[in-house]
């Protein structure tokens, strides 16, 4: 496939290519048909493009070189190794892969079909369950998101009080073994409104503390039996694993902050509609916010009509670390619209630069992987994509994408069906 190929119109080549693939892959009803990219076997240089480094300034007419899955050069002109594959990308834009920081991608295929839902375990306290265990590498939703530059996603369990642990997944690969970027990113908590539920949550954290102490006590005769739930809480109490708490309203956010203080947690807030009302605390406690719903209606009848649209701008002005997610109301099927969530925040006051950061470097920082992804810097994973315009603008096409240097297939069930039925009309027009 040509690096600059556009998907605006299906071509006969495309269809041929498709039928070739179809010939060698058996038909699988719930599993997409796209072969994961091969490991990078020679240097690749993207030349002549605008590099949106995110960590630094945009670089015009610059070169991005990556070798063995890592970025080795970012900047104007470079001495390319002799076997370098050069992608001429004049007038194109290169971005670090976009990161969706809050989704059930891979855990839910079709909402209305129970058999396809693996995002929620029974009971309300499930800290022990891990998204990485049930992540479906062949979900049809993965290529769809990937095609718009979403190259990494935090797949998180949902429901209950403690939903479980999330995993940061690269959106290309054969299985969890090569797709997992980080297997245990955060513990996910849904902050309850009911006082009894808050009490239950508190007691559980207390139990976890005692469990931690019991395990630490090496005295003979004090053999604490293993408890999978409590054991999984130990890294949380040790601040190795952050807690992502879904919470929107002011009093609940305040309670969550108190809860964090009480148990000494690394807290990340997801949602945060009223976050700006306790900006001082969030800032002084270094609590970041994952904005989950830019495309939301105002929370109250008298709220400003653009309340949700301006939330990222207001967080930014308040000095609160935040990122933007698209995994809110419409679930993983809509994560391809991540850049438009950021763009809307930008239309309503956030700078375009910050908007881009909010879906690349910021989520990488919040999720603890900014040393691997989220910006174009030497030494980082070559998880990048090339677009034919500003990625915040809807008509822009992603034309090429790499995850750790592996060139990924940008087709999806959607392009397949598009090609199939385009063929129908092309035949008819003959």
């Amino acid at each position, binding site marked *: 496939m040509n690096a600059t190929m556009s998907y605006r119109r299906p071509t006969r080549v495309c269809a041929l290519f498709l039928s070739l693939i179809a010939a060698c892959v058996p038909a699988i009803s719930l599993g997409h048909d796209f072969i994961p990219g091969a490991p990078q076997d020679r240097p690749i240089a993207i030349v002549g493009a605008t590099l949106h480094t995110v960590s630094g300034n945009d670089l015009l007419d610059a070169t991005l070189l990556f070798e063995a899955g890592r970025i080795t050069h970012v900047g104007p002109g470079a001495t390319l190794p002799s076997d370098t594959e050069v992608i001429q990308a004049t007038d194109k834009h290169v971005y670090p892969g976009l990161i969706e920081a809050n989704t059930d991608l891979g855990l839910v295929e*079709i909402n209305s079909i129970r058999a396809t839902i693996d995002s929620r375990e029974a009971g309300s306290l499930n800290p022990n369950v891990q998204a990485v265990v049930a992540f479906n590498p062949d979900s049809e939703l993965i290529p769809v998101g990937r095609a718009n530059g979403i190259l990494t996603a935090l797949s998180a369990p949902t429901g209950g009080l403690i939903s479980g642990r999330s995993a940061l997944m690269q959106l290309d690969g054969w299985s969890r073994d090569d797709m997992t970027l980080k297997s245990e990113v955060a513990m996910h908590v849904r902050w309850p409104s009911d006082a009894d539920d808050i009490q239950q949550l508190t007691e559980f954290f207390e139990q976890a503390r005692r469990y931690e102490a019991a395990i630490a006590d090496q005295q003979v005769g004090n053999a604490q039996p293993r408890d999978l739930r409590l054991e999984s809480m130990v890294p949380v109490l040790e601040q190795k694993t952050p807690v992502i708490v879904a919470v929107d309203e002011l009093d609940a956010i305040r309670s969550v902050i108190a809860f964090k203080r009480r148990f000494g947690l690394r807290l990340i807030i997801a949602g945060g509609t009223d976050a700006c009302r306790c900006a001082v605390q969030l800032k002084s406690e270094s609590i970041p916010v994952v904005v989950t719903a830019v*495309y939301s209606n105002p929370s109250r*009848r008298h709220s400003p009509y653009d309340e949700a649209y301006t939330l990222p701008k207001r967080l930014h002005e308040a000095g609160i670390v935040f990122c933007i997610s698209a995994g809110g109301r419409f679930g993983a099927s809509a994560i391809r*619209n991540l850049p438009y969530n950021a763009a809307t925040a930008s239309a309503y006051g956030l700078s375009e630069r910050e908007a881009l950061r909010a879906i690349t470097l910021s989520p990488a920082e919040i999720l603890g992987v900014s040393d691997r992804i989220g910006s174009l810097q030497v030494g980082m994973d070559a998880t990048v994509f090339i677009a034919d315009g500003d990625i915040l*603008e809807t008509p822009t096409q992603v034309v090429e994408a790499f995850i750790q240097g592996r060139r990924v297939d940008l087709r999806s069930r959607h392009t397949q*069906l598009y090609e199939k039925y385009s063929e129908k009309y092309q035949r008819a027009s003959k």
Partner: protein
Amino acid sequence: MNRFFFRIAVLVACTTCCVASTLTIAWVQAEEPDTVPDVGVRFQPPTSVLLKAAHIVVSADKELATASLLLQHGKIMAIGNELVPPGGVEVIDCQGKYLYPAFVDPLVEFDVKPNESPTGYWNSNVTPERRMAESLHVDKAKLKSLRKAGVGMVLAAPNSGIIKGQSCVLSTADAPLNELLHRSDVFQHIRLYPNRGNSERYPTSPMGAVALARQVLLDADWYQRAQQAAAANARLPRPDSSAALQALEPVIRARQTVVIDGTNELYALRGDRFAREFLLKLIIRGSGREYRQLDALAATGRTFIIPIDFPDAPKMNTEVDMLDTTLQTLMHWRLAPENPARLEQAGVDFVLTTDGITKPAELLSKLRSAIAAGLSEHKALSALTSEPAQLLGVEHLVGTLEVGKLANILVTDGPLFAKETNIEETWVQGGRDRWKAELTIDPRGQWKLINASDSVELQLEISGEPDELSAKIGLPTAFATAQGAKVAPADNPKTSTESASSQNKEDATSEKPIKVKELANNGLQLTGTFDAQKLGSKPNGRAWLSIVLLQDEGKPLAVDASVLWSDGSPTRFHATRVSPLSKDSPKADQPAESGARKSSEDEQAGSERPPAPKPPGSDNKNKPEASVADALPSVPCAINYPLGAYGRTAPPEQPDVLLIKNATVWTCDQAGILEHADILVRCGVIEQVGQNLEPVKDAQVIDGSGMHVSPGIIDCHSHMATDGGVNESGQTITAEVRIGDFIDSNDITIYRQLAGGVTTSNILHGSANPIGGQNQVIKLRWGSLDEDLKMREAPAGIKFALGENVKQSNHAGGSSRYPQSRMGVEQLMRDRFEAARDYREHWQHPERRANSLPPRRDLELEALVEVLEGRRWIHCHSYRQDEILMMLRLLEDYGVTIGSLQHILEGYKVADAMAAHGATGSSFSDWWAYKIEVLDAIPYNGAVMHRAGVVVSFNSDDAELARHLNHEAAKAIKYGGVEPSEALKFVTLNPAKQLRIDNWVGSITVGKQADLVIWNRSPLSTLSVCMQTWIDGRKYFDREQEQIRQQQDEQLRLKLIQLAAAQPGDKEEEANDKDPSLWWARYDEFCHHGHGHDDDREE
């Protein structure tokens, strides 16, 4: 006929004469002829009563300063200054008292017995034949509560159903129903929504309820015609008997008035329209929200029954309360008491009701608020007395204090509307309730109990309210200690735990007086029991106390007390009262004094004389209770519409000439995109589009430099702005229901979408049924009333639906409703089309069925006839290609062209067939994967259909998504490469074509309505912001003015919050329960496309 009543009165009088509050002195008229045989020896006491020397308010127009009222057998026999009462008359001295006619409440709902009529209507919500006189459940407690509030006569109305039944007029006396009933079958009562929480049986929604009510009235008319036809032609089949339809005959002939519940201001207008449609005589049962649409409601010319249950101040206990309480809630709290005054000033004909008032005492306080807010006292009184009496046709019985009317009288201790005036007595049909608790003998005070050896042994304290006395007993030293202890905490504040624990010890040690339990007072004797502990030499353990009250004429009260101790030994005490009342129970002071003063026994005994009554009309009493607004800094609060934040006080001005200059104009017609172009609008219509237009004198000019102007966004699939429920899911075919009956002009979503450039929206019925309800196209003229939102030019339409939703495939708990398959869907639709054909045939050629009853109008089939005749456009929810083809082929069989295919996510598979049919496609840009039938949904769908020649739009089906449909349009470029100028048509011209309104809107074309959006950059840019939205050449949204508006609204909100927080007394928790517009869904709950994705699925 009063024998039963009398016996109870005698019994009560014998046992509890100390407390008069629960006692009704019966009117006995034993000498009157009676059809009931006598049993035993007759009671025939004298029966006349003279209410002497009162200030008598005969009516709102007439008062007698000092006059008497003679009552006999429940009626007013005479009124005047110098009445000579008959011998044996009971004289009640009413010096200083005011007498008013008791209130007449024009609408009180009562529970009804289940309707089991064998000749009822098929739908159990329709029970016009129900007569309250027969099916009323007499709730004695409710009647008493009404009497306590001052109500002597009520209209008793049924409390459930849609066509609920016929009310009767009852008096509120404590008597058998036959004595209470004064008029039957007064009004027919209608409510235009079903019971909440019913999701199974038709109708499940308000729009279904209205459709049902319409059909019932048509059926009532048909029933009369069918009866006549059958009577005239013996060969005709006999129509089934229907008591229900027969009962509506006086309604449809306008002989019987209907009362329709106007549960908010929109329901009031709907009630009026419904009555107009069927030429009914109407009274509107109001909501207290009439002030929001005063002009429109006044214009109906109807009579209103207005509640005065004004809300309490919103709760302001927490920061969250403060943040969450909407301006609308606050303004309603502030403005609701003005409602009656505003109605009065607008000349609206109205009467008042106690409806909604739960505590009897609140009636007067609410009335005083209304008066403080401007209601005249004259109107307040007549709207509760003479006017409702007239309305209910009982003006000859009640409403004024005149000879010959019922003895329905209020006795008050001052002018009715003055602050602190209380209703002391309510007389209904001569029956008397005394609400003021009084003690015939007041034993309260400190008593020394002196034993046989004349030494003070114990002390007794009796205190409390007249109807709830309490007592303590102990050694005199204990009382001294107790007094000391009571002072201590005040002087030397201790922690609350300490004082609490000291109180706990109280009963256990002798250092504190011991509480007497089970204290009972029968007027002559007090009895009780206590746990004796350390009472000198007395045995510990349970002891029993008995106190006989000895009131000799002219002497102080004495008591004779005895205690039976736990060992069985008795002690007798004499007692003397050391003080009438305990010094350390000041609370008991006031009632005891007044109790003593009012006690006739005391007067006879020559003890304290009652103080002279306060002169009537003394300043402090005559002034109505100060309102909230008086007591606190006034907060001017102009009424806007919709009430609260974002509301308007007037429609936006329409400039005669508007000129937008030098903008990038996306015409969405053949002219394409014009750079540096001008748009000239005259009187709301586009007059010229082009570069460098000639300046026009007095034009309002907008500099469009750097700006983009597009036609208003049109959303072809929305469920906003309807409060009638999105789905009528009680039947599979609901062609008769109309979204247009329930346009909710209050929906804040309208404004939010205006701010995203939406100017026109197609409000569709949901997808519960193969054939759903009729849609309504609206223009987002925010601030206008429901009818003015409707786009008059839009042709009629109807929702159809296919696939999973109508099969109920995703119903929790399964479903067995027909259809369960796409095969069944097709058959059901075909069958209905056949039915519609038959129906049309019958109406067009009744002569071909000479031996049939006359044709009956059927609103469901009429709508389908309009479909068959091409006068009503189908908008069909569809996903899979098979069902799309099914629909097109089925319609082709009947020669019908479809209006639009909605969702149409597999349209790309059959775009050729769609084009061949002439079908249009209104799709989501990129939704997929939320259920099986959308697994093959692709975002290229729009582009493929477009290239195949199908008119394509992208819609929202979602209150939020509609706010950025321009982003959706841009996806047609991304997925399939549609040209930008064509892509924008997906949300402008193309939906206009699909709705057949493209002659008026959808593009910036000369002659079209000036529905325009000004953007700060290309509307297809995700980075663009809607700056202004114009409809009909009026500016409904302006982002630059938003800041000012928000500040103004927020300042008002903050002021009202301060006012609310400063209010004493009860606080309102949530008022949502009273607003019917919040009771039904605002989205298609059958659609399963991720509304509140995270929350809905998981709980």
